[in-house]
């Protein structure tokens, strides 16, 4: 008895003696099916009141999958037909995910590019009527950069220290398990709730004003669990052999961590921090509650007294201009919102690109 006899072959493939390749849909059948289906759907569209590109693509796609499945069931058997059907569905799912991404990128560039020029990037909205053309978003770019930098300064050290605790000292301790659980839970806290918390604690209870700093605090809370998770993963990748080698040389634990573990994981940790920075740069909801409306350039994140208005930020500027436009999608404020959105996306894209480069550089350096 040979091996092939032990395994039940799909219908029609072993019985006729032509081996595994027998009785498949030939190489040209898919193309022929596609052509026939396209022609039929085109006839259908010509004959009835159906119209429009999306419905044509949908009906043609559905028709093709259906025809292919039926053909495959008849010629190749049920198993192969199911496989083909699922393959088609998986490809369709991928296209369904890629389509919005392409549409969003294309549409943002198309709508946003019109207003982006040097004036737009280097001027504020001070004494500019938002209903008219003119002005720029320099004040918002400055605000976003400062707030994100502040948030990173707060969250990155805390996050990395926590990750070191979880990896190096935690090891099955109860406290570490609890922290671990709450890091996960913290990742899921909606950013608007974080904003509301800072608003309650910082502004209502402690009596501070709205300011860039308040926004940065909220961003730091959003960022903290992201940093912890990525840094933790990177530290866990450091081989135990390295740690043990350091111990064997008589190095105490803190020395091992600072001069062996951290340098080894540095590239990955930096990448993780930068990706987290990219994530919070587009965060809007908490800033809406914490950062004010301001048309002027304000470098001071602590500004928030009566004389100085709190710093602006890019995401809140977009939302404001959206509000000013009041649903009129062709008004100058709406175009300004799109251009600011394009700048924000480019900013975030640059950050994550840099993170990737750091990761690649660190890998080759090792």
């Amino acid at each position, binding site marked *: 008895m040979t091996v092939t006899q032990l395994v039940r072959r799909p219908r029609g493939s072993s019985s006729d003696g032509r081996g595994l390749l027998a009785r498949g849909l030939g190489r040209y059948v898919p193309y022929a099916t596609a052509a026939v289906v396209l022609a039929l759907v085109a006839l259908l569209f010509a004959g009835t009141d159906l119209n429009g590109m999306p419905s044509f693509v949908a009906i043609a796609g559905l028709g093709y999958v259906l025809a292919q499945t039926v053909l495959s069931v008849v010629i190749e058997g049920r198993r192969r037909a199911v496989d083909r059907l699922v393959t088609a569905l998986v490809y369709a*799912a991928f296209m369904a995910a890629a389509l919005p991404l392409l549409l969003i990128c294309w549409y943002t560039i198309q709508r946003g590019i019109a207003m982006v020029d040097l004036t737009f990037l280097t001027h504020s909205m001070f004494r500019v009527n938002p209903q008219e053309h003119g002005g720029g978003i320099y004040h918002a770019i400055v605000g976003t950069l400062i707030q994100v930098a502040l948030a990173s300064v707060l969250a990155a050290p805390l996050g990395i220290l926590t990750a070191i605790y979880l990896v190096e000292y935690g090891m099955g301790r109860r406290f570490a398990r609890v922290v671990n659980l709450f890091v996960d839970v913290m990742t899921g806290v909606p950013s608007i709730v974080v904003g509301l918390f800072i608003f*309650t604690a910082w502004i209502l209870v402690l009596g501070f004003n709205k300011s860039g700093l308040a926004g940065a605090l909220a961003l730091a809370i959003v960022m903290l669990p992201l940093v912890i998770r990525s840094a933790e993963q990177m530290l866990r990748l450091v081989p135990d052999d390295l740690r043990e080698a350091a111990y064997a040389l008589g190095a105490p634990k803190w020395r091992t961590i600072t001069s062996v573990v951290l340098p080894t994981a540095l590239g990955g940790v930096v990448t993780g921090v930068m990706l987290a920075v990219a994530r919070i740069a587009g965060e809007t909801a908490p800033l809406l509650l914490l950062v004010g409306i301001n048309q002027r350039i304000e470098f001071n994140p602590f500004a928030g007294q009566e004389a100085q208005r709190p710093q602006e930020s890019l995401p809140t500027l977009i939302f404001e201009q959206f509000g000013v436009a009041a649903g009129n999608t062709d008004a100058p404020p709406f175009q300004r919102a799109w251009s600011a959105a394009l700048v924000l996306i480019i900013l975030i894209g640059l950050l994550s690109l840099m993170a990737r480069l750091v990761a690649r550089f660190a890998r080759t350096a090792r």
Partner: protein
Amino acid sequence: MTAAASGVVLLTMAAITVFLIYRAVPALRGNAANFFTEQRWDADGTPPRFGIAAAFYFTVLTSAIAIVLAVPVAVGVALFINYYAPRRLSSGLGYMVELLAAVPSIVYGLWGFTFLAPHLTGLVSWLDRWFGWTIVLRYRPESAPNNYSPLTAGIVLAIMILPIICSISREVFQRVPREQIEAAQALGAYRWETIRMAVLPLGRAGVISASILGLGRALGETLAVTMLLSTAFAINIHFTETGGVTFASIIALKYGEAGPTGTGALIAAGLCLFLLTLAVNFAANVIVRRNKVA
């Protein structure tokens, strides 16, 4: 010192809970209506009457639409990247999906408002024509001329939570032992049969918890929903018609005009959202942990 840093996480979570409760309770005390059954939001009136019935309904509705649409697509994309795409493309494709996650929510809001909503008219009338009998999909053009409806918001949310579900599913699928896959292939299984026999049974718990995490994201998403739903504090069972508020959008919308009681009421709404997402995330965690032991 590192332990102290970890303490900050616990401290923050505790502080969020304490401060929100501390500020929400006075407003809730003064509420003349039942907080859980009242649909209107008149928190600064005398007496204040506000409740979360409408917000709860629309929050759950939009998130449910998002999950129903996003999970099959996300799992499909994860399978595509891991098993169907040419090997050389797969890391690039993974990066592309991550890009979707990097787009700020406000951009999704803008896009949904100007591009997606106007383009949905055809789909919505089609749904009305064939599925109008379900009542929930019935569509009266005069009551929703712009498609700023829970359905549109749900579709945008689905696009937003797709990357997280997809990337977690991919990770889970990658953890399936190679031997299992090869064993299935050695039995002569087609690609789908291999996936069904070797990959999906092991990945199921991971996909479920990924979906729950995505649900958590959808529940708390603020800007896109705020921009896409026109404010209406009344439950409307038609998915495709204008209207709706969610927990998050109430906060974003009413925050500017809220007086002392109003702010407390918003904090109460925020507290509800916080507890809701907390419960959802704990559930996801429990599933992940139980699966790890097994």
